[in-house]
């Protein structure tokens, strides 16, 4: 089969690989019909995530058709159209039994601090991902769901991570009616987080980025008030100024490890790999939120330390909430919201790229060219 393969920092190619096999009785093999590149893939692509091996296939956002099932699979049949959450989870461990699917203890031998994620380095379990023609899906009775008839494939693939994560990020903000919410990052996760903040009753939603075209999308898609941090000497002071010097009630970090805005932080983290991630946006969130407020961290950081301003967080009495998203837990409600027409996830898709051209897609998405917001990958295009 054809599959994207990592060759080293900033280098990927498409290779002929063996079709994955059933390795466990509850495995399924899914033929991928749509995949996507996520902001998280950039952390791998830039070589920031420890134990990212040459030869791995990335991709944790994908939907497809069940091609083969293991002997113990009861809930899926060959031919079913399925959407697969980015989390790999057993459904039965201490954590899964409590709904913490992102923190499953039975799927990742490489680390106890991280759950299992498709195509996301050995630190997340060493599974190949879905930027390929076929992918192995463990715990087929637990993870995947049938794609509802009314749901477009492009919307379904976005629900496997970005939509669910943005929605989860707004929930971890513990928003109450009338709250002012500031979202750092106008990528897919930030856009969905901003839109979701309104669903939870926010009174004001502000989005910060330095890419004008993405801020424009935040205005249109998420009805947000936007600021380009490149235009301000000190974005934290600006946030204070526009909130009566109180600060926002809730801040959401939807940027993560590659955050820009401070060259030293960015270069030590993203280029030199001396930090787990560059915490610029996280620090801005901590400093922009009001005392007693909540910071929700959706941005991903590596397992090494990062220079986070914990002193400020402590002195301000902040609540810091964070996790990888428990994707499947969000789906029933998100299905309702999408059916009700509150928003259409695929409105933020800018590119549909054949798998064969994935190296260009990575470069474009990483360097933010061609006003790219969300690239989908189409195998067999």
């Amino acid at each position, binding site marked *: 089969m054809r599959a994207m393969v990592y*060759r*080293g*920092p*900033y*280098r990927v*190619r498409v290779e002929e690989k063996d079709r994955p096999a059933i*390795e*466990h*009785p*509850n495995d399924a093999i899914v033929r991928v019909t749509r995949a996507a590149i996520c902001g998280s893939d950039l952390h791998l692509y830039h*070589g920031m995530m*420890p*134990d*990212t*091996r*040459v030869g*791995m*296939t990335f991709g944790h956002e994908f939907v497809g058709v069940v091609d083969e099932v293991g002997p113990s699979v009861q809930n899926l049949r060959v031919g079913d159209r399925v959407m697969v959450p980015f989390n*790999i989870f057993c*459904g039965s461990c201490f954590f899964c*039994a*409590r*709904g913490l699917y992102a923190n499953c203890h*039975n*799927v990742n*031998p490489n680390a106890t601090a991280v759950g299992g994620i498709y195509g996301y380095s*050995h630190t997340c379990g*060493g*599974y190949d991902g879905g930027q390929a023609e076929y992918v192995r899906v*463990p715990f087929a*009775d637990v993870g995947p769901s049938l794609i509802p008839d009314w749901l477009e494939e492009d919307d379904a693939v976005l629900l496997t991570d970005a939509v669910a994560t943005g929605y989860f990020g707004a*929930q971890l903000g513990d928003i109450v*009616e*009338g709250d002012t919410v500031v979202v750092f990052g106008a990528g897919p996760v930030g856009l969905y987080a901003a839109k979701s903040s*309104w*669903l*939870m*009753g926010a009174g*004001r939603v502000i989005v910060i980025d*330095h*890419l*004008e075209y993405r801020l424009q999308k935040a205005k249109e898609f998420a*009805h947000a008030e936007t600021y380009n941090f*490149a235009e301000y000497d000190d974005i934290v002071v600006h946030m204070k100024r526009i909130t*009566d010097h*109180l600060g926002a009630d809730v801040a959401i970090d939807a940027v993560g490890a590659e955050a*820009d805005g401070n060259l030293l932080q960015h270069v030590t983290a*993203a*280029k030199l790999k001396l930090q787990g991630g560059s915490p610029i946006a996280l620090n801005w969130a901590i400093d922009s939120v009001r005392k007693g407020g909540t910071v929700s961290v959706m941005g991903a950081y590596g397992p*090494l*330390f990062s220079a986070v301003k914990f002193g400020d967080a402590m002195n301000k009495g902040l609540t810091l909430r964070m996790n990888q998203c428990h994707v499947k837990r*969000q789906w029933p409600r998100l299905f309702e*919201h999408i059916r009700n027409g*509150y928003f259409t996830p695929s409105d933020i898709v800018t590119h549909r790229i054949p798998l064969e051209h994935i190296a*260009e*897609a990575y*470069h474009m998405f990483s*360097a*933010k060219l*061609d006003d790219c917001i969300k690239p989908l990958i189409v195998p067999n295009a």
Partner: protein
Amino acid sequence: MPYTSDKPKQAETAEELRARIPGWGADLDPKDRPSVPKERFDPTLSGAHWEFPERQEEKWPRERSIEHSMLTPVFGTSCPPKGLSGVIRKYAYARYSEGRAAHWLLLVAADRVDTAESTLRSFATLRPDNPITQTGVLSEVRRHGWSSRVGRKRVDTGHQLLDPIIVGAPWVAAGLLGYAAIRRLTRGRR
């Protein structure tokens, strides 16, 4: 104003927001949201029909965190450790817990060694690594690299200049080493 007790006035009322934003307030009740409460005990909800999953066959000694008491029943089988990078990885797992910086720094070092080893190995195949096609840099033309950057207020264009150095440095180093080796060989002949 934080200097007095009242919350700043909201610019728009709930009715105005509901009219302007589709779905505003659909999840208004903080208790009625899918991730609330954070932990909700319900072992049957997930669809799992086992108390503990069957075990996947271990076809080679699978490296694992020493913070685990056993190999997890299911695990990924992509890219078994190999070469010098594999030795470093196995040592990082066997010796240091996730709590130790050495664990992660060794793994990052192994990643760099893996890249070098794999690139060298690729030269012995019909498909050697090609930094031009693999970096997708040719999309700079088709995807408007110039107009996507110039004249915009984005702040990342400066450090993007470092990217070709990060990609290119090992190739330059390998070239210089190769050149030095050839010179030494030819000198030895003379």
